């Protein structure tokens, strides 16, 4: 082969490629003019070409740098399922962060985009934090013209029935169906000025919202703008700004930065970069986006790039010299306005440019600022999906948080500045029935159920209404007239009040709806909207609620929802007929409504009775089951609650629940049965659709915490507090978690806030816990004592329980027992049986610590016989284990066995939950211990351990290790087992806050027991280090003077337990 010949080969090769495949062979033969070798060369080259499409396409360094074939191969393929919910359809492409897939949300039957994060990025905690922040910021931008981000989480991917692919971090986003602006320009050339203007205004609107939220996009280009065709002929397409993947907040510069997170390298495509961005990434401001925006404008009206190549070479120079080719050169009839708009964006010095997108549009449109603002708002509305946020007074949110958070000011303030996600609080007043037909009294519930499906509206709950009435010094059963309703709205911050009445004569009925926007006085409203929905009654009254009525209610709710700014798409997504999500039976509905009113009055028992009547009337009344379950758990009837939740979640019934309700129940049920992954998934789903409902976020924090994902848990609580700063639930949980994390200062700051929100007793509890951890025992005692004076019975009981724990940790066991007995005496009514059982377990634990095994078992037996709460069962089994290893007498053994039998009765035979499986394994373990089979016992415990949540302390394990140590074959084995036991105790002993962050989850004296055991084992293994020193010092400070004295005198409880020769050493540990 010579260069000349090669040239010829090239020519024929390229010419052949222009032809359809079938014709190529013939062409080559002809073109080769008889030269067989030439023909062969070209043909073989063509063959190679057909195989070499991907060959060398990935640059050598580019591939290897990621050090992972992942970079080449997408981790998921069509058909794979992520988190049992997202079914992958195809891979849409990949970027620096990972691959993006089109997927179907099989639950909701809608398309989403799923971005899977590359594992090497996910493994990097700094990068992960970056992502979580990115999502937090991206979520704050809910704007039609910005691609919506839903959720970021970790999940399992599987292929088919059997194969598990692995756990991945992924992001779900809106799936946009359309083509990029880049493709459109390439296809059809430049846009008309009208078309270009439309896109410009829409993108400006979206970008504006991002800048307002403090987010810079950094990668605006036609390739990142999607155009979605409108469904209606004459409507403009919707322009969506994509891939905020590189965007982040104004950088928090190194000094005083809270994260130390280093800035990413060169970000953004060179072609659309502002000159300052090319120089250095650190000082990028919104002006960089303006620059890129200008380039996009240019390209839209000329069909060409302002800077022709993607090459760095010419571009930088041209940008800096300011030599921007005039757009008019390519589009002669371009208006002056366009020229000026573009020019003003493309000035080389950032501070010379337009400082906001609004200014650009002002010039483009030739209008003033106010008009432009309206224009941008309208742009959002025009393209079909609106998330108007004008109902949320952002200022109010800011104030609340800033004034109460003090030192957190800097961190929280940035979040408060973020535009709050859509969500409006609506007060639905009871429907006034003016027809004289009794059954229509219950219309409110149907209307309420309909509205509760809304992703935009959060209905004001009865609790808050009750609170408001209290402030107004009105009785709870006050008749709500218009002025009262308006005042309630003003006090609770509701944005709208909905009044409704049902009227009618003959067979016609009307549902008249009045939406009011509260003003500054209960006498008037700021704004009003009215509508009427009618239907015709069937001639004969029947058991079933007429479909015409249900339709009318639905139509009414659709109208209210659209008035609230909810998009058509969102409304359609969750829009079941009210009868389908409650009941279509009048009688059952009435019973349900009555039950609700009883519950409001505090008669939980009565409410439950009524609800069970309702489900008898209508056996598929899922919502009624759900409420029953809620009440059961409240009353401590875990077993009944379990059954009721199961019924509600039964596949046949659960269709009769709104998504919100279903997720809530799934989540609560999962928490109650210790399946925290499922709980997280359920609440994640909840928050992805009802992102403005604080409940989802608050609930989600608990499973996250139990899964060991404390950062995310705290994050979720912050979000919850942002959504609704007036609730005390989230700050309370947060205070607890902060204590667990050892962030005492931060927790302390919350105490004031919680008190201000009205929950003084909880504030006292946190105060007491904090004081204890800071070794200020007097203060702790005082705080807990305060709680025993609470007005609420169960709170009082908690106060005593906390005091008991205080004494027990201080080594004053008798005092602790006395405190617990106070509870016993007063808890004689049926409704307090649950508390009784809990305290019995506490007493059993203390007795066990004191070596009073028989007494301990007596109390335990009574508790287990009557109550299936997991606190009872799990602590119960811990106690049994410890007693079992003390080589008990036959009678005691018998007792242990009979308690185990009682315990086993609570384990569900069919439909075993996670908690059931754990319990089953634990029971096996205990039985093995009793038989002296330490190996079997340990094995069974391991089974349980695998299912236990990461956040559950594993001190129970120590008992098994010690048993194994005792039966060890040689010294080495024994010491090893002992070390394992030591390690188990050490985890708790090192961190008292892990227990005292939520003391009522643990029996009294749990910390002290762990610490004692730790120190004893350390002594045995002759370990003396910083950890043991600290623990010992701490213990000395915790123990009361009296306890210290008796320890010195050797009169400790250690010696009270029966000792048997060689067993003595082991018994000391328990």
């Amino acid at each position, binding site marked *: 082969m010579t260069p000349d010949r090669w040239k010829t080969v090239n020519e024929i090769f390229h010419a052949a490629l222009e032809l359809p495949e079938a014709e190529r062979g013939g062409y080559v033969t002809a073109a080769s003019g008889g030269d067989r070798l030439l023909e062969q060369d070209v043909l073989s080259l063509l063959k190679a070409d057909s195989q070499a499409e991907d060959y060398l396409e990935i640059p050598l360094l580019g591939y*290897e740098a990621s050090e992972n074939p992942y970079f080449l191969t997408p981790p998921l393929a069509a058909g794979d399922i992520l988190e049992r919910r997202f079914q992958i359809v195809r891979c849409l492409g990949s970027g620096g962060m990972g691959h993006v897939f089109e997927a179907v949300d099989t639950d909701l039957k809608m398309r989403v985009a799923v971005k899977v994060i590359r594992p090497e990025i996910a493994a990097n905690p700094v990068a992960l934090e970056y992502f979580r922040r990115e999502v937090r910021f991206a979520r704050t931008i809910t704007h039609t013209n910005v691609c919506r981000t839903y959720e970021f989480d970790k999940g399992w991917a599987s292929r088919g029935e059997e194969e598990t692919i692995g756990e991945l971090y992924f992001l779900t986003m809106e799936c946009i169906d359309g083509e990029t602006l880049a493709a459109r320009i390439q296809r059809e050339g430049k846009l008309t000025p009208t078309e270009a203007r439309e896109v410009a205004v829409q993108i400006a609107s979206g970008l504006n919202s991002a800048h307002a939220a403090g987010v810079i996009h950094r990668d605006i280009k036609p390739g990142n703008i999607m155009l979605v065709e409108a469904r209606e002929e004459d409507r403009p397409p919707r322009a969506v700004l994509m891939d905020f993947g590189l965007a982040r907040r104004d950088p928090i510069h190194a000094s005083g930065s809270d994260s130390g997170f280093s800035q990413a*390298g060169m970000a953004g495509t060179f072609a659309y970069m502002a000159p300052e961005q090319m120089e250095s990434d650190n000082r990028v401001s919104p002006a960089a986006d303006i620059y890129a925006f200008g380039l996009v404008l240019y390209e839209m009206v000329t069909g060409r790039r302002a800077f022709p190549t993607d*090459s760095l070479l010419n571009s930088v120079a041209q940008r800096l010299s300011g030599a921007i080719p005039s757009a008019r050169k390519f589009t002669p009839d371009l208006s002056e306005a366009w020229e000026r708009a573009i020019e003003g964006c493309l000035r080389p010095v950032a501070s010379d440019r337009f400082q906001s997108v609004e200014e650009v549009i002002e010039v483009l449109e030739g209008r003033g600022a106010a008009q432009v603002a309206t224009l941008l708002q309208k742009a959002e509305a025009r393209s079909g999906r609106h998330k108007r946020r004008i109902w949320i007074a952002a200022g109010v949110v800011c104030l609340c948080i800033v004034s109460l958070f003090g030192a957190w000011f800097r961190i929280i303030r940035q979040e408060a500045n973020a535009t709050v996600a859509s969500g409006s609080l609506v007060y639905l007043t009871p429907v006034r029935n003016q027809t004289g037909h009794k059954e229509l009294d219950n219309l409110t519930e149907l209307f309420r159920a309909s509205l509760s499906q809304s992703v935009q509206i959060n209905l004001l709950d009865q609790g808050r209404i009750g609170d408001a009435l209290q402030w107004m010094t009105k009785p709870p059963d006050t008749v709500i007239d218009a002025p009262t309703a308006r005042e309630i709205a003003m006090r609770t911050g509701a944005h709208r009040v909905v009044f409704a009445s049902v009227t009618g004569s003959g067979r016609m009925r009307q549902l008249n709806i009045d939406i009011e926007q509260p003003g500054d006085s209960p006498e008037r409203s700021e704004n009003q909207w009215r509508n009427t929905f009618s239907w015709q009654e069937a001639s004969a009254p029947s058991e079933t609620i007429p479909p015409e009525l249900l339709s009318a209610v639905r139509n009414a709710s659709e109208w209210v929802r659209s008035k609230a700014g909810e998009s058509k798409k969102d409304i359609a997504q969750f829009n079941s007929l009210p009868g389908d999500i409650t009941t279509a039976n009048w009688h059952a509905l009435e019973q349900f409504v009555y039950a609700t009113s009883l519950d409001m009055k505090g008669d939980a028992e009565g409410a439950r009775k009524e609800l069970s009547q309702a489900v008898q009337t209508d056996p598929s009344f899922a919502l009624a089951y759900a409420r029953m379950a809620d009440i059961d758990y409240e009353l401590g009837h875990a077993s009944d609650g379990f059954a009721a939740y199961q019924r509600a979640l039964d596949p046949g019934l659960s269709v009769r629940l709104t998504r919100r309700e279903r997720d809530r129940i799934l989540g609560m049920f999962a928490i109650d049965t210790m399946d925290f992954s499922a709980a997280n998934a359920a609440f994640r789903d909840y928050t992805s659709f009802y992102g403005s409902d604080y409940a989802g976020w608050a609930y989600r924090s608990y499973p996250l915490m139990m899964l060991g994902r404390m950062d995310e848990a705290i994050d979720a609580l912050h979000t919850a507090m942002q959504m609704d700063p007036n609730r005390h639930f989230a700050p309370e949980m947060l205070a607890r978690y902060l204590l667990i994390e050892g962030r005492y200062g931060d927790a302390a700051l919350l105490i004031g806030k919680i008190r201000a929100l009205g929950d003084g007793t909880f504030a006292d509890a946190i105060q007491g816990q904090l004081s204890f951890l800071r070794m200020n025992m007097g203060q702790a005692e005082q705080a807990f004592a305060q709680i025993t004076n609470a007005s609420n019975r169960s709170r009082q009981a908690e106060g005593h329980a906390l005091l008991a724990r205080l004494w027990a940790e201080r080594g004053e066991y008798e005092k602790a027992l006395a405190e617990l007995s106070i509870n016993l005496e007063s808890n004689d009514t049926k409704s307090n049986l649950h508390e009784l059982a809990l305290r019995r377990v506490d007493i059993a634990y203390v007795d066990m610590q004191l070596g009073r095994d028989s007494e301990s078992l007596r109390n335990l037996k009574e508790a287990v016989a009557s109550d299936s709460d997991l606190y009872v069962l799990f602590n119960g089994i811990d106690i049994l284990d410890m007693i079992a290893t003390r080589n008990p007498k036959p009678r005691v053994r018998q007792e242990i066995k009979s308690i185990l039998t009682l315990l086993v009765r609570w384990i569900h035979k069919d439909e075993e939950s996670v908690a059931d499986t754990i319990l089953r394994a634990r029971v096996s373990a205990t039985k093995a211990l009793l038989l002296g089979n330490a190996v079997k016992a340990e094995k069974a415990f391991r089974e349980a351990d695998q299912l236990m949540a990461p956040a559950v302390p594993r001190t129970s394990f120590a008992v098994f290790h010690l048993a194994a140590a005792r039966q060890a074959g040689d010294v080495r084995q024994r010491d090893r087992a002992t070390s394992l036991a030591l390690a188990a105790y050490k985890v708790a002993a090192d961190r008292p806050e892990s227990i005292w962050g939520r003391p009522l989850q643990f029996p009294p004296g749990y910390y002290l027991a762990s610490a004692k055991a730790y120190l004893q084992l350390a002594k045995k293994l002759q370990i003396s280090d910083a950890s043991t020193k600290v623990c010992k010092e701490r213990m000395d400070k915790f123990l009361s003077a009296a306890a210290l004295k008796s320890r010195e005198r050797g009169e400790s409880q250690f010696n009270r337990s029966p000792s048997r020769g060689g067993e003595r050493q082991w018994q000391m540990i328990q």
Partner: protein
Amino acid sequence: MSAMPGDVTELLQELKRGNKAAEAKLIPLVYKELRRIAAIYMRRESPGHSLQPTALVHEAYLRLTGIREVDWQSRSHFFAVSATIMRRILVDHARANQTSKRGDGWDAASLNDAILPSPQKAPEILALDEALDRLALLDERQAKIVELRFFAGMSEEEAGSVLGISSRTVKRDWRVAKAWLFKELSC
């Protein structure tokens, strides 16, 4: 020891004037800079960005010449030179992997190993390098394009800029070069 902005610019001017010797002088300077930057890249936690050779080279260029340089010709020379450097580094590294002896002169191993291809790729890289030399005898420009695209990771447009040809031409050349290399290396 580190290059002063003037040095590189001057050398680039020399190169532009056709002085081939300037290339030899440029290489060590640029190489040092590339190495330094690569190390920084690897140390930085840069989520979402794998090492992009063009970015690397761009940054090296900025640092060595200062951004105010307007002469695009110098820049494209710089890039072309960088691509050659990268190729040599990678090939030598592969050779070192292959024979477990240090390659001469380049001290390739001092580049962060994490960014260099794994030893498994070594035979492929060496074979490619050799084939590329043969391609250069048939069509120098096509071989250069492969160098720019595969070793320096440039896009078709960037390659076109460096060589002063349209990206359409680059596409054509790239396609046929790939096919030829594929053919050569799969027998």
